[in-house]
Structure formats: structure tokens, C-alpha cells
């Protein structure tokens, strides 16, 4: 009866998503969830997840605890007063699952709309150059988030006057990206730790790391890490060499 959990972990957005998957896979009744079975399957998954260091592992562990609590409450003998209504310990979980499902479907609808809009590109006019009497400004384009980020950026530089005294090293992200590209042309894999020892200063290392993140974003490289705090393994990405 117990089918092995052979599923791609990236498929799930969180514990609720996994539960919905298990319910669907085993054709369970969401209104009458067999809590023992689902707890067992869920825990089997969390075991797997532990090894793989999911980003949201904490949320999965929390759900596992919730499931076990529900299971325990269902095993307890029910002693209720006559007029007291006994609530099924699973009700809250069911409501959460249904509520999440509503938004998951709405997200699916948004995805469809996104696909429909993809082929259209909005007109992007060249920036307007105001005449002298028109140097007015309003906020229509500015978000509160921009104000936060701007202040954070300014104040970081301001409150750290020591940073101005450091000798400026001649190092740029594009240079370091170029260096990584050269390495990857001859090597299939690079360990990030091997880079650490090559650079004499933290600044160069930090810039290299930023360059690496940028390359990751543009898919020029792939980065693998088997466990949190483990070494990073860098390899060529889909878009390697296209920029």
C-alpha cells in the first residue's frame, strides 16, 4: 500500500502543498483525512527533505508536529458534556488546506494571464527632457520601497566612515566574472573553496562572489550545494558564454 515517495522536492511550495499532493495522489477525502496514513507519508518526506536541506525545512517540521498533535488528540477518549459540541481535531487543518487551495488555483489563473500577456511588449518612450520652467517632480513612479532602499544605502555609507579610508583595490565584478568564465572554459566544475585561497583580500573575494551571483542570475553558471554551509560547486549554466 505504501507507495515510495519518488517525487521531485522542488515541486512543493510548502507543507500545505505537499499535503494537497498526498491527498490527490492517494485519492483521499479532504473532508475525512486518514490522519495516521498522511502523517506517516508526510514524515517520510520530511526525512528526505532533511538530507536535502530545503529552504523551508522549518515549516515542514512544524507541520509534522501539528500532524502528530492531531493524531494524538484523535486517539484520546472523548469525554464531553452533553451540550458541548465536539470539534473534529482535523477541522482546522482541513480549513487551512482548502483556503490554501483556493489561492493556489488563483495563482494558476494568474499564470495563465501571464502567459497570455507575455507576447505583448509595452511602448517604452524615450525619457522626457523637461524644459527649464518644468523642473517639477511628483511621486507617481516612486514606491515607499525605493525610499527605504535609498535611505538604507545612504546611511550605510555614512555611518561607516572607515570604509573611505580603505585602499581601493582595482577589482570589478566584470573582471571577476571574466576570470570565472576563463576557468570554466577549461574545467567542468570549480569548488568555491578553491577560489577562497587564491584571493589575498576579502574585498576581492566578495566581489568575486557577487559576480558569481550575477552569473547565476543570468544562468551563465549553475551552483550546487549538497548541504547548507557545504562547499559550493560551480559549473557551466544554460546561458554560458552567451553574454
Amino acid at each position, binding site marked *: 500500500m505504501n507507495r515510495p515517495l519518488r517525487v521531485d522536492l522542488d515541486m512543493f*511550495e*510548502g*507543507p*500545505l*502543498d505537499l499535503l494537497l499532493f498526498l491527498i*490527490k495522489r492517494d*485519492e483521499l*477525502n*479532504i*473532508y475525512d483525512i486518514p490522519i495516521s496514513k498522511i502523517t506517516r507519508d508526510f514524515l517520510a518526506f520530511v526525512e528526505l527533505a532533511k538530507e536535502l536541506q530545503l529552504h*523551508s525545512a*522549518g*515549516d515542514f517540521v512544524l*507541520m509534522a508536529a501539528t500532524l502528530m498533535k492531531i493524531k494524538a488528540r484523535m486517539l484520546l477518549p472523548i469525554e464531553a458534556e452533553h451540550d458541548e459540541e465536539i470539534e473534529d481535531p482535523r477541522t482546522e487543518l482541513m480549513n*487551512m488546506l*482548502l*483556503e*490554501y*487551495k*483556493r*489561492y*493556489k*488555483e*488563483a*495563482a*494558476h*489563473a*494568474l*499564470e495563465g*494571464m*501571464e502567459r*497570455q*500577456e*507575455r*507576447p*505583448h*511588449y*509595452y*511602448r*517604452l*518612450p524615450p525619457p*522626457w527632457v523637461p524644459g527649464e520652467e518644468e523642473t517639477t517632480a511628483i511621486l*507617481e513612479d516612486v*514606491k*515607499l*520601497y525605493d525610499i*527605504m532602499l535609498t535611505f538604507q544605502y545612504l546611511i550605510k555609507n555614512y555611518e561607516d566612515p572607515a570604509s573611505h579610508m580603505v585602499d581601493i583595490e582595482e577589482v570589478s565584478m566584470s573582471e571577476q566574472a571574466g576570470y570565472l568564465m576563463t576557468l570554466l572554459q577549461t574545467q567542468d566544475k570549480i569548488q568555491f573553496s578553491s577560489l577562497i585561497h587564491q584571493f589575498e583580500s576579502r574585498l576581492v573575494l566578495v566581489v568575486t562572489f557577487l559576480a558569481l551571483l550575477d552569473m547565476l542570475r*543570468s544562468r551563465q553558471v549553475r551552483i550546487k550545494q549538497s548541504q547548507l554551509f557545504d562547499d559550493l560547486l560551480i559549473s557551466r549554466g544554460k*546561458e554560458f558564454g*552567451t553574454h
Partner: protein
Amino acid sequence: MELTDLKKIVEALLMASPIPLTETRFKMCMKDEAELTLGLEEIIESLQADYDDSGRAFTIKKVAGGYQLVTRADFEIYVKGLFTKTGKLRLSQAALETLAIVSYRQPVTRNEIEAIRGVNSDSSIRTLLDRKLLEIRGRDDGPGRALLYRTSTEFLQYFGLDSVKDLPKLKEVEDLLSEDQQELV
């Protein structure tokens, strides 16, 4: 003013405007009220017909409460070359779920989003703020005074919506239940 002239003005405005052209903004640009012999909608319709007839590569879209020029879908394969190798970046499932929750429940706090998704949503909120699809809108009245989030004009543009009212209706829980029962049979 004649329709022909009004059409040209609207065309110029659509060309120059970085945001959707609304009726209000159009009136502000016209200054002389007496010249406004037709409403924006009528002018747009006629202009749209011209574009269709002359086989232009662009069309007019009603979006975020106004009108904006967009390229026709047929040219996607060429236009996407302007931006990156892959064209527009698609939103992740996590970001879409977060957006779905905000769009139907706004304004909403991070806690509410996470309570529904059952998972930490910091990074998707951040991605959505960076892409200007979400914005911060004041604070909750509750004890924590948490930041409130809502969708932006860019959100409407991104999904081609005139207003959030045009979002498909959220399914009722009862509908979901009955669908599930049917699947069981």
C-alpha cells in the same frame, strides 16, 4: 475639433506616455475644454480601427484604468531579442501564490500571507517589491503595526488587467469541496 485631429493628439500622447493614458490625464493635456468634442474612448476606438486597417505592428490595450500601446503578439520572437536571451522573466510559483493572496485580500500583512501559504514568504515578497508588482501601503492597525502590502499599477499592466475587479472570481470553498468529491467518484 475634428476627429482626425483629436486622433493625432491621442496618438502622440500614447506614444509619449510611459504609463497608461487615462481620461483625466487626457483632459489635462487638452487644456481647452471646448476642443474636446469627443470622449477618449471614441477616439481610441477609431484610432484602433486605423491601426488594424493599415496593418501596424502595434495595437492599443485597455489597462490599469487607461490606454497603452503594445506590440502585437506576432512580433514577440523578434521583440524579445531586445531584452535578454530569454525575453521576459517568468514569475515563480511562490511569487504567483503570494501575488494571488495579495490581489484578493489587499491590503494584507506578511503574516496573513504566510498563514495561508504555510511557508516563509520573505523572498517572494522581496522579489515582487523589486519587480514593482507589489507595493507597501501603510501599516496595520493591529498591535504589531505590521506593514501592509497591495498590488501596484505595474501588476495590472503585467497581467493585462484594467482593474483588480477584473480578476477572475476566487472559488468558494464549497466549490472546491464538491469538485473534490467528484474526483473521488
